């Protein structure tokens, strides 16, 4: 749903607008450095890939295709999309910016972008692109090159990602507020999950809570049997008294920030082996968070997590996913596959989930969003145990 920011959340729309102005100022400075007259962000409706609209305008717009245009001499961004209904709702919801639909003019939104390029850079010059390589369709690229043969399209994704990966105090507070809401979701889960109940219906009750608070969507997932892969529940699946459950949220906040959070639950005390694996995972989280200081590499964090599990005598057979990634207005606001030598910087927010895969295809997918600082990374969700023993009655 496209919704205005609730006023009760970290200063509401006014605070969001001020933060967006800071982002636009920073992006324009980069545009001057790179000598580009316009910056065009390509947005697809994939969950976790609509972040440029949230970053530069502050609204969730579930359009299959949209473009965010920043012009050097315009104070506000322009968002172009096809659907008139989505455009009208987005115009109401954005904290800053103009939204334009091409529906009634009968042409695709890219045509408006081409017209702006011609008007602003005069058919020649440089235009910066965001998500040029992994979001722009090749047919769109051909159309741009055909319409503007003398314009140089410069991929600025990595540069602007470096800007948005460093979070402001407002952004940290917004993500912390989401951590609190998700904590309520965990409490609701603990209250409702019982042997015999539908996993799907319990997850749905939690989703109803989030949607009712204005969250735009996301996923609620489980893993069982100590396998590290979390998946959404299906019709007919029910909890049993022997279940050892990782319950995970990958959810978008009311104010446009993604958050990953999971915790472990069971209805009976954990068997000795499981308890020991949990202890190792807790230590891996603590050690990697402590180590996550500015300058450390992605590869070093991964190696450290593996070392913790080895110190417990567990056979390490690989990784089941990445050990962490940056997170913000997109689920990953950086690389799709993080290079081993990529380095953490101060005030990044990391979805941290040591991903060491143990023999037998075992692993607990426990995660949280962490704020990276000089003394290490600290969780953004309220303090509390990562494991809870639930009532079976």
């Amino acid at each position, binding site marked *: 749903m496209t919704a205005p920011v609730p006023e009760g959340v970290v200063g509401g729309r006014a605070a969001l607008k001020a933060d967006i102005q800071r982002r636009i100022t920073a992006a324009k400075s980069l545009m001057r450095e790179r000598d580009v007259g316009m910056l065009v962000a390509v947005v697809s*409706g994939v969950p976790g890939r609509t972040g440029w609209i949230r970053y530069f305008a502050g609204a969730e717009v*579930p359009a299959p295709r949209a473009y965010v245009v920043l012009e050097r001499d315009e104070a506000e961004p322009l968002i172009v999309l096809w659907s008139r*209904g989505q455009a009208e709702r987005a115009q109401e919801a954005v904290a800053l910016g103009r939204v334009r639909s091409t529906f009634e003019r009968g042409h695709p939104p890219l045509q408006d972008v081409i017209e702006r390029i011609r008007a602003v850079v005069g058919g020649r010059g440089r235009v910066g692109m965001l998500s040029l390589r992994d979001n722009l369709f090749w047919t769109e690229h051909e159309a741009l090159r055909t319409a503007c043969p003398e314009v140089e399209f410069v991929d600025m994704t990595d540069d602007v990602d470096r800007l948005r990966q460093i979070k402001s105090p407002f952004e940290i507070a917004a993500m912390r507020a989401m951590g609190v809401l998700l904590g309520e979701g965990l409490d609701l889960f603990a209250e409702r999950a019982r042997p015999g109940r539908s996993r799907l219906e319990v997850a749905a009750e939690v989703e109803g809570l989030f949607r009712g608070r204005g969250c735009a969507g996301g996923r609620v997932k489980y893993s069982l049997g100590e396998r590290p892969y979390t998946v959404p529940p299906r019709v007919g699946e029910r909890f049993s008294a022997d279940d050892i459950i990782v319950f995970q949220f990958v959810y978008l906040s009311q104010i446009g920030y993604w958050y990953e959070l999971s915790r472990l639950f069971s209805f009976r005390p954990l068997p000795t082996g499981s308890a020991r694996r949990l202890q190792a995972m807790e230590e891996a989280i603590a050690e990697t968070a402590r180590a996550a200081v500015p300058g450390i590499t992605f590869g070093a964090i991964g190696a450290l997590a593996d070392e913790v599990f080895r110190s417990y005598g567990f056979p390490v057979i690989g990784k089941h996913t990445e050990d962490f990634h940056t997170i913000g207005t997109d689920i990953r606001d950086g690389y799709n596959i993080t290079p081993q030598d990529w380095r953490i910087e101060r005030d990044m927010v990391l979805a941290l989930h040591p991903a060491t895969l143990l023999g037998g295809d075992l692993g607990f997918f426990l995660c949280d969003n962490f704020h990276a600082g000089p003394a290490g990374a600290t969780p953004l969700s309220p303090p509390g145990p990562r494991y809870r023993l639930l009532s079976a009655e």
Partner: protein
Amino acid sequence: MNGALSSYSLSAEIGRRLRAVQDLMKAHGLGVLVAVGAGAPGGRGWIRYFTGANIWGPRVFLVLPATGSDTLVITRSPDDAEWLKRSVVGGRVESTLTARITPIQRLVAMLAELLPAAGAVGFLNMTALTVDEVQRLREACPAAVWRDLTAEANRIRQIKSAFELTAMRETGRLLAQALDIIAGLARPGARLGDMLGEAERFLRGRGCELGRVECAMNGAVFGEGVDVDRRPGQDDVLQVQLKYAGPLGYWHELSRVFALGRVPGPVAACLAATTQALAEAKAQIAPGASYAHVTAAAERSFAAAGFTVTGRHRLDCHTSGTDETDGACPPKDGWRFQEGMTLAVHPGSLLAGGLGFCLDQTVVVTAAGTAPLFPVEAALVQGGSA
């Protein structure tokens, strides 16, 4: 779930679709067909059509063979792969992340092996390949012939089987129940977020994985987004439109208007005119008729009711199925309705003053016209009192 929708019938249904598209591949001399998927509107349907599974991530490829049923889904995330393995009917699933490669890298490697024997390669949603993906395909297979089969394959999936019609009815039944829940909660002073949260809880709990809700107030068609903290008052008229994919992935659109007290005269007149326009638009739909006939009928109807049409707020109708729109949108010139198509019909005329309702009904095209997929009750429902 409806007893007619067993996993056996889904398996048989997917076999039918695969054979139909393999006939198309043979006619075009294609050895492999690749569906380009993404967890975005318009990007999920082909994967669901040929595997029965939903996708979420930014890129998924489905590789369909020229014969047999050994399909392969390539996705990035191991979690998504695990999810897909539980729901894909009759095929394999691979993830690429732990090998530290992307789905396009895996696809390119596979096509490089297959192409000498396979000849030309077909694509569904070929235009949705990214710049990087096309560059990798061209570099790896410079002499390959690529064909876009999307339009031809859409003509197959737009004609629905009995199984598909049943699945779409099932989604409609769930949406109607969710609207009933909202009706039970709609009273002056009730918080909008509480009503919508309960509807969401119900739909998710019944296996609807994708979807969205749109709201508008007092006949202003574009509304104000969904302000969850808004509390409609005694004189407010609330419209809620639900667009969701059901447990088997079939989309249905359904809306209802909730009056919390007295309905103001101009709003009532607009609602009555829209109800009539919907009826007259549906009456134009029959095999051989076109989208333009539907638009003209809706506009005539509004004019006859004394309203001035100032523009359009949405399409008047579109095909619907495993994607919200399983064909070109807006439809190409010359496109005609055919028997067995399912259409979401919702007159999109924008009336003077920004007025309009989005009243919709999903219908199946029959030899004689249309039949509703799910019986729609009166558009206007009186909510409870404070």
